[in-house]
């Protein structure tokens, strides 16, 4: 008589389809998943602890390294939280440029998602194409901030510098060519039998469960919940732009794929509207207590130099209080909760990482399916370990 036993399989932390250093201990009955125990923390750098020992400006580069596929979106959440704490108004031009850049970041992040997700479940070509397009956004990043990934471009009160001449031309080139590329991906995947077999009915999670597990972002909208922070609690001038919020129906991996593709097209839409409304003007708030002086001032006047030195070495005191600011990151709701005791450093800074909370639902989504489908679930959750472990 045949006997059965549960087999335990270790997956990761060094595994190409876990998107970083995620380790899953999977208990299998044949090929059917019975239990998943995620082990995380391999990339824990203590960003929350470090930020308690740095001035408000010095924390911005740390936020680049959370979700390293979407650095500018992380910057935005942080600077908005501090601006809320300080109650300062950011000039319109800076707000519009922030929107353009975070939407480009959304494109960049979603391109990595579609590339790796498709590669994981067997479609190599999309990977090559999407990385080619991502390179365009990366070179724009490099032109604008000097770095391809860790941009550190936003400042509390606005931007570090105004954009270079020709920025608008470069962005227009991207948004004019990208919709055609999206058509290519859809042509390669949407009606592809292998793709459909792997994604339709995979990783189903109902709207109720998704909310209960705290899932946010495209993964929640794929389950049919019509909720987007950019529309429902707008920040940085998002209320001025018209865009659709795509929603799925069947709550499976294929619907989440469709949602993200529409989101990419809508991002292009938002960028176009923001670009059209872009007017010349200052890019830094008029609050010398907080913002750095212009480089011209620093190099030519002694007052400017002293001012720069004071801000760089001492920072600025923030009023006592606590604020929470959530932004719609490519992966979901990224939140910064800052407690200030009136000093020049945050007394406590909490980062609410979307990937961390989304990953909590992995067992719910993959239990009872085949081991190979787990790879599709990891791909569709679109996690980044830099953000999960912080």
């Amino acid at each position: 008589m045949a006997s059965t036993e549960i087999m335990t399989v270790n997956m990761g932390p060094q595994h190409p389809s876990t998107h970083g250093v995620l380790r899953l201990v999977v208990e299998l009955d044949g090929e059917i998943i019975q239990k998943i125990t995620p082990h995380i923390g391999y990339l824990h750098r203590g960003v929350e602890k470090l930020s308690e020992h740095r001035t408000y400006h010095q924390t911005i580069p740390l936020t680049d390294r959370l979700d390293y596929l979407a650095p500018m979106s992380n910057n935005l959440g942080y600077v908005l939280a501090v601006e809320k704490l300080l109650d300062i108004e950011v000039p319109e031009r800076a707000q519009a440029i922030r929107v353009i850049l975070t939407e480009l970041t959304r494109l960049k992040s979603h391109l990595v998602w579609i590339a790796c997700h498709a590669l994981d479940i067997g479609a190599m070509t999309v990977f090559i194409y999407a990385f080619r397009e991502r390179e365009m956004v990366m070179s724009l990043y490099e032109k604008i901030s000097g770095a391809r990934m860790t941009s550190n471009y936003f400042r509390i009160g606005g931007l570090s510098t105004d954009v270079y001449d020709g920025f608008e031309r470069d962005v227009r080139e991207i948004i004019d060519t990208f919709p055609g590329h999206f058509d290519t991906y859809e042509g390669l995947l949407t009606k592809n039998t292998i793709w459909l077999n792997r994604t339709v009915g995979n990783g189903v999670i109902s709207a109720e469960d998704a909310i209960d597990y705290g899932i946010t972002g495209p993964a929640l909208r794929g389950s049919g919940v019509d909720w987007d922070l950019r529309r429902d609690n707008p920040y940085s001038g998002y209320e001025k732009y018209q865009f659709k919020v795509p929603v799925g129906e069947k709550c499976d991996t294929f619907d989440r794929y469709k949602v993200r593709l529409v989101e990419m097209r809508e991002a292009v839409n938002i960028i176009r509207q923001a670009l059209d409304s872009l007017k010349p003007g200052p890019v830094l708030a008029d609050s010398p207590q907080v913002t750095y002086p212009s480089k011209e001032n620093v190099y030519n006047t002694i007052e400017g130099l002293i001012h720069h030195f004071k801000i760089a070495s001492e920072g600025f005191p923030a009023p006592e209080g606590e604020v929470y600011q959530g932004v719609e990151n490519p992966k979901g709701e990224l939140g910064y909760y800052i407690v200030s005791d009136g000093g020049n450093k945050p007394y406590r800074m909490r980062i609410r990482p979307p990937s961390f909370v989304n990953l909590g639902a992995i067992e719910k989504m993959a239990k009872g399916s085949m081991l190979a489908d787990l790879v599709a679930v990891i791909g569709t959750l679109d996690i980044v370990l830099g953000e999960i472990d912080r």
Partner: protein
Amino acid sequence: MAETNRAVIKLREKFAASVLDVKEFRGEVTVTVTRENILEICNFLKSSLAYNLCTDVTAVDYLGKQEPRFMMVYNLYSIPNKDRLRVKAGVPEADCTIDTVSGVWKSANWLEREVYDLMGVTFNNHPDLRRILMTDDWVGHPLRKDYPVQGPDREPYKGRLS
């Protein structure tokens, strides 16, 4: 605005004795409650006031600043009403425990594990209370204010030598 907040009115009606403090700062409403009633209050907030998304659970260490030492912070969001509410509950150092709310929102499961791991607050009746970011054999709770930033038993960083 804090006085007219829909949650504050209802909480004051139903849990008059447990609501310790209501504050508003930059348009955000914070309600401080007693830790004994946290589970009851969270259940009420979810079922009657539609705070269905538990965005975040975290804690703040007020070592030497105020008593009780720890403050649990629950950032809640209501998808139907599109508004936020922050609920706080103090946890003293001597009895560093509070009831889990992972039965109310499943997202609280991992978030509470993180608080347990990094802040050292224990959750009663939690289904799976293990460390989550640090290794299982780690000693201490890194986010506590008396935990040195460079780690235990190490010289503090004094800046570059050159």
